[in-house]
């Protein structure tokens, strides 16, 4: 009976949370379109979420490309198809690994920081102070962060892919001895700009919306204690990561991206 009650409670909480998130998304949408437009805050957030994530994105992209090339070469060489290494590395990175891994990395670095920052503002009554000054915290605090996350995700994903392709090239051509021309031509022949590249950017954009919304919503609904901030931050990482993987499946299954 207790287990059933717990299940019911969890279900009600899930639906309530989902409703809260949808309402929050609508408020962000309204704040984004209505004046005042907070361009400077948006640019500041682009810097914090984007520029400060460059190193981790580049290093991880390079490493993933290198290992993908290594694994790909070892498999392809069995079938005498090692000249297709560029296509394997490119398609894997562009269609799947680029947007997904970038979103997961951005969740861990920028998403959790966003939740912790907003959660701390809740715990120290800064959001209440804004409300008392007749300033909407969703307009001032959440909207620039959510929009910046949405804008920055496709850019970071593109950078991850470029670094990955370079890492793959280094290992495939430099280490394993694949012909440089074959690597590049197979990559060029396999990748379709509309289906693969634009699809990849669209995927990253959707992940950006997801991470931005979840991170800011969790921050705003943080319990005003230090434990509450910790729990909200953890929750952002878990919920956003799972959501990214679930959405990835459905986007791929439904749109073939």
């Amino acid at each position, binding site marked *: 009976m207790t287990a059933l009650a717990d299940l019911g409670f969890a279900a009600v909480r899930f639906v309530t949370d989902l409703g809260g998130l949808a309402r929050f998304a609508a408020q962000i949408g309204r704040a984004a379109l209505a004046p005042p437009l907070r361009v400077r805050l948006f640019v500041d957030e682009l810097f914090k979420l984007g520029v400060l994530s460059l190193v981790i994105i580049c290093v991880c992209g390079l490493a993933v490309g290198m290992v993908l090339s290594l694994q790909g070469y070892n498999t392809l060489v069995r079938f005498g198809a090692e000249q297709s290494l560029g296509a394997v590395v490119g398609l894997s990175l562009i269609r799947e690994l680029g947007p997904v891994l970038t979103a997961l990395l951005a969740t861990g670095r920028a998403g959790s920081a966003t939740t912790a920052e907003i959660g701390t*503002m809740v715990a*120290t*009554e*800064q959001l*209440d*102070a*804004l*409300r*008392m*000054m*007749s*300033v*909407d915290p969703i307009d001032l605090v959440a909207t620039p962060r959510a929009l910046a996350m949405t804008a920055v995700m496709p850019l970071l994903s593109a950078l991850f892919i470029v670094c990955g392709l370079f890492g793959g090239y280094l290992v495939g051509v430099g280490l394993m001895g694949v012909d440089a021309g074959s690597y590049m031509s197979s990559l060029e022949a396999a990748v379709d700009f509309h289906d693969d590249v634009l699809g990849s950017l669209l995927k990253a954009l959707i992940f950006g919306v997801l991470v931005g919304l979840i991170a800011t919503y969790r921050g705003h609904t943080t319990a005003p204690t230090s434990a509450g901030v910790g729990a909200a931050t953890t929750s952002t990482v878990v919920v956003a990561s799972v959501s990214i993987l679930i959405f990835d499946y459905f986007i791929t299954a439904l749109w073939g991206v």
Partner: protein
Amino acid sequence: MAFGQRVVFRDLSCRFPRGRVSVILGGSGSGKSTLLRLIGGLVRPQAGSIVVDGDEITTLSERQMYAVRRKLGMMFQDGALLDSLTVFENLAFPLREHTTMSEREIAAAVHESLAAVGLSNVDDLLPNQLSGGMVKRVSLARAIIMKPVILLCDEPFSGLDPLSVKLVEGLLVHVNRQLQATMIIVSHHIASTMRIADHVVLLLPDGAVEGSPAELRRTTDPRVAGFLDEDGVAAEARA
């Protein structure tokens, strides 16, 4: 008013006279800060009505509340200064949001407000570089910069040494006289209350008792005398 299953208070009725200094007293958990947050519309009651300067606020949406809050200023217990902004930017913030003042006018208003709370040369400091007393004074300066009709102060004396308490007391009285604002102060500092209050609302488990400090000192109500006796105030007055 309740949070989940926990009832903070029931059937509470009180009023705060215009232009006067009112202090809300009560034990820990009696709902003093909650009452202040109800007046500011930061929390909503389950039933009843709250009238702020003629506006019934319990039926207003959050967006409509912003118009009412233009008439309010609030000094938070721990300052609630925006920690990414300097002192100057914290004070300039509401002016930049709600007025068309030039930067020169804003600077003048900020320095006037800081001078009113006895601060200077703190423009470029961040909130984490200020002492507890300075945070409270900057918070007060920010609360009064828009010249509010009603000023809400949550525990302005908590965590301060006796000298700072006297200083903040003086500032609150000075601000009240200068702005003619209605001040509603939450405190558990009975001695300060008796010095600065025109009107006291004492929150007790079974309701609220109101009156001037002199009336409360003379009261024979054992609940009030018992509360004030904890600080020796009523006993001293009766003697």
